[in-house]
């Protein structure tokens, strides 16, 4: 990759959106009272695809010969600092933590409003996020942010190159990939195929302690409190039920045509 901006600007600002989610392997539950995710009772981790987003930002920075800065942006409770620290220990330069009781229970639309407000306070050329979070699985943040900020959206990237004032991606599709490009600044979402996230080194872990971390309240970011939070959410969880127990599998008896029956079954499930 050529160095970013061909001399027009000296440095590229990358913002990575990172979300703290319940451990993917733990049993996740909704709370009976307000029907939001019970985050207190489970271990929390960085949303897995967000690690790929952080890694890609670090790779772009390396490709630019270090002439870039990587900012982590997280919305979440106090505890989300653990996830921010992990991203900083991987090598990000600084972080912004939007944390306010008023934000609790915000849905995707409200979250995009809040994050867009914080983005307004930052200088950025690229915003990178994971393609979905393992808790809510809405997969809409990049699109919502593109709409709110008026910036182009490049979604589902499995490869990213920045060249001059342009960003080009390979967008993963069912059959292969599309090549899509847009002028910077742009909003980008990545899929797991894009890279292999690094493990933080001890040096990185120690350095993360002293990296700048800005904590913002809704007021700090100019977020109107009555536009966020569970009570004001445009979408409400009305009812939920637990997943039904696993049903018994289908047994195919081989009477000489077992292979064909298995193939028919796989075809009916759209697996082949």
């Amino acid at each position, binding site marked *: 990759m050529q160095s970013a901006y061909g001399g027009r600007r000296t440095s590229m600002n990358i913002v990575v959106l990172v979300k703290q989610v319940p451990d993917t392997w733990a049993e996740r539950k909704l709370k009976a009272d307000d029907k939001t995710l019970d985050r207190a009772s489970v271990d929390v981790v960085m949303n897995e695809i967000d690690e790929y987003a952080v890694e890609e930002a670090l790779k772009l920075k390396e490709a630019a010969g270090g002439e870039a800065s990587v900012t982590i942006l997280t919305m979440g409770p106090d505890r989300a600092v653990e996830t921010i*620290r*992990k991203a900083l*220990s991987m090598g990000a330069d600084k972080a912004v933590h939007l944390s306010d009781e008023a934000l609790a229970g915000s849905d995707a639309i409200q979250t995009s409003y809040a994050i867009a407000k914080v983005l307004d306070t930052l200088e950025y050329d690229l915003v990178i996020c994971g393609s979905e979070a393992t808790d809510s699985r809405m997969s809409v943040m990049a699109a919502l942010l593109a709409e709110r900020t008026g910036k182009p959206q490049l979604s589902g990237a499995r490869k990213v190159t920045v060249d001059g004032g342009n960003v080009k991606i390979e967008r993963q599709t069912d059959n292969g990939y599309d090549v899509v490009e847009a002028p910077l600044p742009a909003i980008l979402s990545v899929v797991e195929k894009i890279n292999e996230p*690094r*493990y*933080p*080194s*001890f*040096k990185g*872990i*120690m350095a993360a*302690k002293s990296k700048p971390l800005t904590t913002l309240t809704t007021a700090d970011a100019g977020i109107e409190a009555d536009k966020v939070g569970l009570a004001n959410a445009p979408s409400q969880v009305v009812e939920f039920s637990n997943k039904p127990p696993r049903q018994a599998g289908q047994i195919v008896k081989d009477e000489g045509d077992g292979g064909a029956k298995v193939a028919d079954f796989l075809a009916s499930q759209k697996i082949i």
Partner: protein
Amino acid sequence: MLDTRLSEEQEQLRKTVEAFAREVVAPVAAHHDATKTFPYDVVRQMGQMGLFGLPFPEQYGGMGGDYFALCLALEELGRVDQSVAITLEAGVSLGAMPVFRFGTEEQKQEWLPMLCSGEALGAFGLTEAGGGSDAGATRTTAKLDGGQWVINGSKAFITNSGTDITKLVTVTAVTGERSDSRKEISSILVPVPAKGFTAEPSYNKVGWHASDTHPLSFDDVRVPEENLLGVRGRGYANFLHILDEGRIAISALSTGAAQGCVDESVKYAKQREAFGKPIGQNQAIAFKIAEMEARAHVARCTYYDAAARMLVGQPFKKHAAIAKLVSSNAAMDNARDATQIHGGYGFMNEYPVARHYRDSKILEIGEGTSEVQKMLIARELGL
């Protein structure tokens, strides 16, 4: 106030290595054990994470951590693969640490960045076929000839000494006679490959199959005079110092083995059913596992304590010996119990507990046998 909780950074390091061990090391552990192959790809990734540089200053390519940070990493790796853990332990404690402790500035500059990155491994050649715990019985010789040391002799059971990335073997050799007519033993750096140096074929070991261990032979191996490591005649004394701290590292590794046996047993006891319920619901199994957990916890406490004393500069010889003794016992006891809990499957080599069973015995032998630890403890008590 006494506090054995980890700091935020230590806990993050522990978690990072735990994730690495689970995601990268564990999936290939059985393969490398079965094929007795050195896990180059795992070691390369450990190098990238900076694990080989954990206790060394950044100016030498290290991570700027301390010896306790290394121990935390060893415990987490040891939970899933003892071979990988001992590769790191020996690479740091025996490969790089002697250069860091006793080397000249030039020697440190030359070797440490390479060893800290994990791109090269160093080995320490002390033990000989005729002497294990009696390290003073060294027969290998090094004689000065025209500004060069000429080394002759052989070494036994040397870890990390014959891999494709082994670049340094530090060897103890008799370099003369002291005024009290005892042997003068010195340490000498031998860059390898070298003419006359041979890493003989690997040992056929009971365990630690993916760890690289060879007999070494030196036949008129010549290295420059300035490759002397530390003060001439202090080779054995230097090594004793290295051994004291090495015991804490082996204790961490043993704690990992003990904990790994608990991990596997809990998993198995929840999932394996007999007579209509998981076997873990039987007290005969549950109590056994509870005892195993207690042993692992005690083992951990002993190495935390010894490491804490060492890092603040207090005497720690007795505490390191206690840690080594207690935790290697815990590893062996837990391996035996975990295998028993697994029944017939525990006797199958592809099960992690079977690997722990084979790997644990050496913990009661290497870096000072349990008997040597008891001798050290007794001596500290004035016996």
